[in-house]
């Protein structure tokens, strides 16, 4: 088992979930999403977010609009589509379920903690 690989896989899934979660509050700019992910120590390098946003958009989970900015060129503001909201609901459920399962296993095997 490659620990680094497992960690990367875990982080990837959680990152996708959290991005949707951040966007559920309404339109957000990529840099604001990054700020939030960084505060939560979920993102290591910023470059990760951009392909992820584009892929979620192509999967129909996100949509964006251009908005004028005072500091430069227009910016892309993302938000969830209906499909994205459904996906987020699904992931919320799945996350609760998963954390419960993990907790159950961990408390049962406290010797390992």
């Amino acid at each position, binding site marked *: 088992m490659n620990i680094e690989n497992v960690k990367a896989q875990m982080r990837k899934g959680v990152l996708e979930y959290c991005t949707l979660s951040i966007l559920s509050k309404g339109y957000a700019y*990529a840099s604001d999403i990054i700020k939030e992910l960084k505060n939560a120590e979920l993102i290591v*390098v910023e470059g990760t977010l951009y*392909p992820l946003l584009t892929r979620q958009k192509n999967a129909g989970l996100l949509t964006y609009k251009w908005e004028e900015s005072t500091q430069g060129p227009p910016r892309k503001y993302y938000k969830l589509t209906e499909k994205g909201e459904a996906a987020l609901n699904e992931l919320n459920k799945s996350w609760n379920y998963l954390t419960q399962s993990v907790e159950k296993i961990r408390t049962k095997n406290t010797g390992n903690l």
Partner: protein
Amino acid sequence: MKKTIRIHISGFIFNIDEDAYKILDKWLNRISEKYKNEEDGEEIFNDIEMRVAELFEEKVGNEGVVTQKEVEEIIKTMGQPEDFENDEEPVTENKTDYSKKKSRKQRRLYRDEENKIIAGVCSGLGNYFGIDPVIFRLLFVAGLIIGGFGTLLYIILWIAIPKAETIAQKLEMNGEPVTISNIEKAIKEEIDWVKEKWFRRKKRRN
């Protein structure tokens, strides 16, 4: 003394010294190289470039000079292209890629009902020999025109070759060893296939 270059990134203008420019250019090229073959690679690249411009602007303002230090800091923040994503492709292709299947290890002949026209005889043959089933289809059609021979042979093969029903059989048909991870993969594909089929049927009904 250092020469500075005036560059233009996503609507921002910066002065950058020559060494810094070389490093930045090399790094951006690697990103563009990584995404150039993707349909939305350009969009991803532009978004990243935009962020770079923003970070420069935060660091040196519109008229400042970007030096090697700033470029290195930004590359550290953004990361190397190989760290952006895991390189396994998120593409889920349902159609079997016949040309890819070169290894004949543990391969067995089954009818492939997921890619069938009539009963999956030809797609099964295609899987087995690792070539496009269209070739077999053409041969059978040719046989049909010439003397009706093709029909008879097809029916015999239809009866003689079992269809791939279980996951293990489907793996054997594709020449993949029957391991847990392969079975898991195949189950996932199976679910997607059933889902898609169901959606199509539902769409037709509407």
